[in-house]
């Protein structure tokens, strides 16, 4: 006898198997449908494979023991990611509704899960599209030679370069000053950066046209947005391998450090990465699979998607690190040749007497013969390991490290265009899932009228979202984006995922769920799936959630700012958040997480009030 919480009236709220068969035969459903299976798989692949695969996974891999990181990653992919994926696919395909509809059907008190998914999708979609706006800006600016981030502008006297650019690098200056015009603090708004506003407008319009008729237009767009990144990554991989220093990068990425497996942080990061990579708990996957025919083999889909996601993460990491290795080698060689030049100039030796290979020997010899001259010279510290590990995560990877590598490659504009188109496609295909996870629940909750055509629904959502994202177009926008990234996309997703598993296994009933899957694909899920749904999955998520909360609470609330007046410049300075940021963090992380219990509570209160009112009315009538 399985543990199932009492759930009266479930049969009335969902289609029975006979209804589903009939609907399938008559094609009487008025829901949108996928044109073919390929569209569905490509949409899911595009949704799961996002910018994070390019700029988060390689960083985690390299910082947690290289090749050894693949072990916890793949283990958790199979134990945590795949079961949750099948859970969302199966429940959407079976109940044939969007995320709010599915949870409402299971139990009206659980509607909060759907609302939380919608809120999280909305918050993530807002800052994700801002990243796309920045990528669009760089893309538009790639159509010139030389690229604008290759040179510093001159100051007013035209005697030398602008001091901010001189002290940092051209790419840093271009990103923080020319593109964003960042202020030194999140509290300092500084007005709107109009070119970012234009790019935001462009980004939202592109999303609007791709999703204008729902999945019938986005389903066609994914043929490009889901496949193009793979082609571009292949081009970068081949080009990267022909560049000098690429193998250094690959070695740095994949050299296994088995000791890291003992570090619990490695497993935590691997689990969190699997969770976010699969876009679970956003609500989009449930929606997408509800457009499938009833007997679609969702188990096969879940396995295929997991394999593709795992493979793509490793593939993207390889391609990225060949380029990172090339950039690090170039910088290292430049640093070394500057030191050699200093030495050669000071001692008036012929140019090629000192090379990189005999530099150390020559330095020692000269130091012993004339130490006083050596003392007066200034040598740069050339550290290859530092160059390989700096700035290789998040926006730093795309807008600073990669752009710097690109200007060193011959034919820079072409490479820049390719790179930013790839990031655009990765981002747009993830945003399709996002928009789906926002528009469909809004329709189901009757916030948007059901009678409106799909164009109007998409249009209104995109317009409202554009106005809200103007927050990120301010001069302090980058700090807001980082804030959203850290808090809106972390704890809420874990809590929603946990609730989803509990709801399906213990409220919908694992027996009923198994029967549904048997009805849909012809056989019951094996013992592996049973164990992971009932015990392993929830335990893993709970552990990650608790560990995350514990570490976050202990951390000081600080953030990194671009401040030309700080002492650390050109490094980003670490500054504490202003006090009112706690309210914002609560809105971002707390509200979606607490929606589930809050909604259940509110509903309980309203239902009891109604019951009491009804009872008092009948008593009045009787008496």
């Amino acid at each position, binding site marked *: 006898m399985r543990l199932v919480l009492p759930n009266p009236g479930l049969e009335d709220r969902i289609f029975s198997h006979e209804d589903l068969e009939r609907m399938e035969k008559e094609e009487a459903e008025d829901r949108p449908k996928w044109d073919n299976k390929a569209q569905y798989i490509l949409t899911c692949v595009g949704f799961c494979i996002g910018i994070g695969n390019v700029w988060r996974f390689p960083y985690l891999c390299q910082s947690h023991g290289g090749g050894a990181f693949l072990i916890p990653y793949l283990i958790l992919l199979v134990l945590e990611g795949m079961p949750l994926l099948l859970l969302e696919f199966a429940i959407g395909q079976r109940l044939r509704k969007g995320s709010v509809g599915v949870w409402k059907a299971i139990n009206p008190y659980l509607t909060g899960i759907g609302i939380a998914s919608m809120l999280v999708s909305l918050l993530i979609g807002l800052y994700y599209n801002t990243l796309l706006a920045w990528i669009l800006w760089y893309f538009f600016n790639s159509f010139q030679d030389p690229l604008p981030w290759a040179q510093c502008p*001159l100051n007013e006297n*035209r005697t030398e370069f602008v001091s901010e650019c001189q002290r940092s690098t051209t790419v840093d200056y271009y990103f923080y000053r020319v593109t964003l015009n960042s202020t030194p603090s999140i509290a300092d708004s500084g007005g709107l950066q109009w070119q970012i506003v234009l790019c935001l407008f462009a980004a939202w*319009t592109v999303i609007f046209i791709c999703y204008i008729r729902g999945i019938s*237009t986005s389903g066609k767009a994914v043929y490009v947005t889901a496949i193009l990144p793979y082609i571009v990554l292949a081009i970068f991989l081949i080009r990267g391998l022909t560049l000098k220093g690429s193998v250094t990068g690959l070695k740095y990425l994949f050299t296994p450090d088995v000791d890291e497996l003992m570090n619990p942080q490695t497993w935590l990061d691997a689990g969190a990465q699997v969770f976010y990579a699969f876009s679970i708990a956003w609500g989009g996957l449930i929606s997408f699979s509800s457009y499938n025919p009833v007997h679609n083999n969702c188990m096969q889909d879940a396995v295929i998607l997991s394999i593709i996601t795992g493979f793509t993460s490793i593939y993207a990491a390889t391609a990225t690190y060949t380029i990172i290795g090339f950039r690090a080698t170039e910088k290292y060689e430049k640093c070394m040749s500057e030191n050699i030049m200093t030495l*050669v100039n000071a001692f008036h030796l*012929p*140019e090629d007497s000192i090379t990189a290979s005999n530099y150390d020997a020559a330095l020692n010899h000269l130091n012993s013969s004339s130490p006083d001259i050596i003392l007066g010279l200034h040598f740069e510290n050339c550290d290859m390991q530092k160059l390989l590990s700096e700035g290789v995560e998040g926006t730093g990877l795309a807008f600073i490290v990669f752009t710097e590598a690109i200007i060193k490659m011959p034919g820079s504009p072409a490479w820049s265009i390719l790179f930013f188109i790839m990031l655009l496609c990765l981002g747009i295909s993830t945003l399709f899932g996002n928009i789906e996870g926002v528009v469909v629940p809004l329709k189901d909750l009757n916030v948007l009228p059901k009678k409106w055509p799909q164009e109007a629904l998409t249009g209104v959502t995109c317009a409202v979202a554009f106005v809200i994202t103007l927050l990120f177009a301010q001069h302090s926008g980058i700090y807001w984006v980082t804030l959203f990234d850290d808090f809106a996309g972390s704890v809420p997703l874990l809590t929603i995922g946990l609730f989803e598993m509990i709801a399906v296994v213990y409220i919908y009933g694992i027996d009923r769920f198994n029967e549904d899957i048997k009805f849909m694909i012809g056989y019951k899920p094996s013992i592996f799936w049973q164990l992971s749904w009932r015990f392993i999955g929830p335990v893993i998520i709970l552990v990650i959630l608790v560990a995350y909360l514990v570490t976050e609470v202990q951390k000081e609330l600080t953030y990194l700012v671009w401040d030309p007046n700080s002492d650390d410049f050109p490094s980003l300075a670490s500054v504490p958040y202003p006090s009112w940021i706690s309210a914002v963090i609560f809105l971002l992380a707390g509200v979606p997480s607490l929606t589930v219990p809050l909604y259940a509570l509110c509903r309980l209160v309203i239902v009891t009030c109604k019951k009491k009112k009804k009872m008092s009315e009948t008593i009045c009538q009787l008496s």
Partner: protein
Amino acid sequence: MLDKILFLLCLASALADERCMPDTPHGFQVRLSIKTALGDEAYAWNENEMFLFRATLAFAMRNHMTGQQFNVSNIVVCDETERVSFWFIVTSPLDTSQLIDQENVEAAIRRSRNRINSAFLLTDKTLEFVDILPTLGTPYVHPTPPWLIAFGVVMGAVGAGIIIMLVSSAVQKKLKTNKKPQDKDEDDEEETRVKTMENGVARDGVYNMSFSEDERFTAM
């Protein structure tokens, strides 16, 4: 007489040599990095190259101080090293005991820097005049920022696409609503609304009379 002239010349040249020394306040240090600039095609630095240098510098001085006929002999070089670096001073053509001051020499070099560089197939960085900062080349400023052009193209395409989509769905809807009342008039003669009982649930069905009428009369 000849002895005296010879003695004066020696003295003059000796004086000139004394004035040319490392860290002289009247001259500049030059550093050439030929191998860095040209790699395999680097030429060897020899007396002829030095002669060319002195000639080029004399040319630069002539360009700057018009009227004065500088000669190769007015450019005095000393302290040549293996690095290929040396110091030089410039004497006035009118009076070899007079040295041209640093500001004039610097101005002359700045003016003709490009010509001096190209005589040696080198750049500002590889033919270094220590303490003379190269004038920075102004980055090319486009008349219209190219990003606006790209932005305009993309927005134009997207805007056109949106209009086409909206218009086509509006047209489709209009065709549908136009067809519906027409179809209804035509079908009324051929169809009767029949309520069929199916699975105990009353369902509205449409019985196509035109089809069934043909069956009543068997073909001859």
